[in-house]
């Protein structure tokens, strides 16, 4: 039996537009997705903001009723058997909210242990153990309002593990964490996976999915556009070469000109303080270099590197880049 089984899952939101002359607009957040996660697998759902990752997790955790399709967690239907699903899953959503800030970390866990029907004698042993596991031992009697963002996120992990769930849904768990906090959390997720937990992790950080997940589904505009191992996904970009150009103050019209170059597959920009790193994916190797430098003439240009494609390049290509979504079978 699969730990998570999704068949043609669909979710449409209805949004009201206007104040006086109101009209209703339908937004398809998840569009007929199907996938299966094996027991004990660490599965990644990767996609840009608004791709449908959180909506999918909300449906799988019984917090949102699907518009169509079905999903089962360890054989239980998420709608018809929601009462059976809830005790066997744990979930966290990214961000700091969702804890009682005026209570201590320990009181938060104690209350959720009751809500998850954990026997008091079990909770008495498990709560200190979890507090130690997430590195909050010694801070457990302090109010959550005094915790850092990373501490709150770790407390969320402890909360999700209170009832020893078989399946964990982690929705962008490292969102907003500093690099050290994010690394600690990733290490914790890896440990949980080695303990045999089935984990469905959503993220929009490619390296995070690459470092943690055994298989990754790339989701965009509510649809799964690729599903493979990290190594398999990298093959989507193996025919590309990537030019990285460090520029100070590039303007939109220059980016448009780069995008319009015939050999260019996709262009993305990373803002780093005063400078931007322009990533140009090309299917014609370094042939793009000369017209690219002509467009950038007159601008202050820093380091220029031509490199092999990475998983991130495959992801950029898959989710559309600037020249449309790659069609994947």
């Amino acid at each position, binding site marked *: 039996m699969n730990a998570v089984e999704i068949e043609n899952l669909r979710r449409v939101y209805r949004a009201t537009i206007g104040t006086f002359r109101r009209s209703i607009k339908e937004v398809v957040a998840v569009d007929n997705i199907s996938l299966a996660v094996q027991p004990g697998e660490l599965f990644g759902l990767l996609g840009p903001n608004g791709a449908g990752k959180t909506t999918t997790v*909300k449906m799988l955790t019984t917090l949102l*009723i699907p518009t169509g399709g079905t999903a089962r967690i360890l054989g239980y239907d998420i709608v018809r058997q929601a009462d059976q699903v809830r005790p066997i899953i744990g979930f966290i959503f990214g961000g700091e*909210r969702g*804890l009682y800030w005026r209570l201590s970390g320990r009181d938060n866990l104690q209350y959720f242990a009751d809500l*998850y*029907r954990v*026997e008091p004698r079990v909770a008495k042993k498990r709560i200190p153990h979890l507090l130690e596991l997430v590195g909050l031992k010694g801070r457990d009697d302090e109010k959550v309002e005094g915790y850092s963002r990373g501490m709150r996120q770790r407390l969320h992990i402890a909360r999700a593990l209170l009832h020893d769930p078989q399946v964990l849904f982690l929705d962008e768990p490292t969102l907003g964490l500093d690099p050290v906090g994010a690394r600690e959390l990733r290490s914790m997720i890896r440990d949980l996976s080695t303990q045999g937990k089935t984990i469905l992790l959503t993220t929009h950080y490619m390296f995070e999915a690459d470092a943690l997940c055994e298989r990754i589904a790339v989701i965009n505009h509510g649809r799964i556009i690729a599903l493979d191992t990290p190594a398999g996904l990298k093959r989507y970009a193996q025919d590309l070469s990537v030019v990285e150009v460090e520029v100070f103050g590039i303007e939109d019209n220059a980016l448009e000109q780069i995008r319009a170059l015939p050999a260019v597959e996709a262009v993305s920009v990373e803002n780093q303080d005063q400078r931007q790193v322009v990533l140009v994916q090309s299917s014609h190797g370094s042939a793009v270099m000369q017209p690219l430098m002509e467009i950038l003439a007159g601008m202050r240009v820093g380091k220029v590197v031509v490199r092999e494609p990475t998983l991130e390049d495959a992801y950029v290509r898959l989710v559309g880049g600037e020249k449309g979504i790659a069609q994947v079978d």
Partner: protein
Amino acid sequence: MTGLLNWLRVFVRGAVLSYIALFRWFRPAQYTASKIVMPLNQILFFTLLGSYALGTNSAPFFAIGNSLQIAAVSGIYGVTMSVGGERWEGTLVYLFGTPASRMSIFLGRAFVHILDGMLGVILGLAWSGLLLGVDFSHTSLLALALTILITAASTSGLGLLMGAVSLAALETFFVNNTVYFLLLVFSGANVPLQNFPGWVQAFSYMLPLTRGIQAARQIVAGAGLSEVAPLLIGEAAVGAIYIGLGYLLFRTFETIAKRRGRLESF
């Protein structure tokens, strides 16, 4: 048996922790201002105004009415904050993801506020005796205590309903203020019910507090428990109806929010 024990744990621990976590006035300065100073001012204001207009003999009418009405500070504002506050804390989504009994979660939100409301009423009555000369020498304290308990509980019943409304309406204080002032006017705390037209009196008797205030006035005047029993049974029944409606709305809210994807929206 295990199920019942867990139900009670969720009820009791949820009651205490939700009070600490979600009742925004649970800090010394806010508590003193909202639960002691404001109610005291309300009692003094209406009693002195009433005495000026109708004579000092009317002071017990206003003092007792407004003392009982203080139950609404906890019952309406407090309970609504403890139910509706889940949305502001962002905990609603986690709460509804648990397998816990929704009834024990819901009822637990009112429990400490009932006790807190009773304390408020007792303080109000003490001020009435000390500052406004209300005579308690003929009062059956047991009957009065029971009246305070039932009135605080029934008012919290309306608070639970309003809490569920505030979840759906995404608004807490508009709901609170409207209901609080409706009670102030129509519960008979400050205006004798017979001064209202018949349909308004009928509305008054649909509210909590109305019968509780009448019972308290009669008890302070020397009536025994058996004499006010019909009023107390009526007050308890009104409270039970509001609790039932509140729970129904709470469950409906959960279902609709999950259908529309609005558990977290503000």
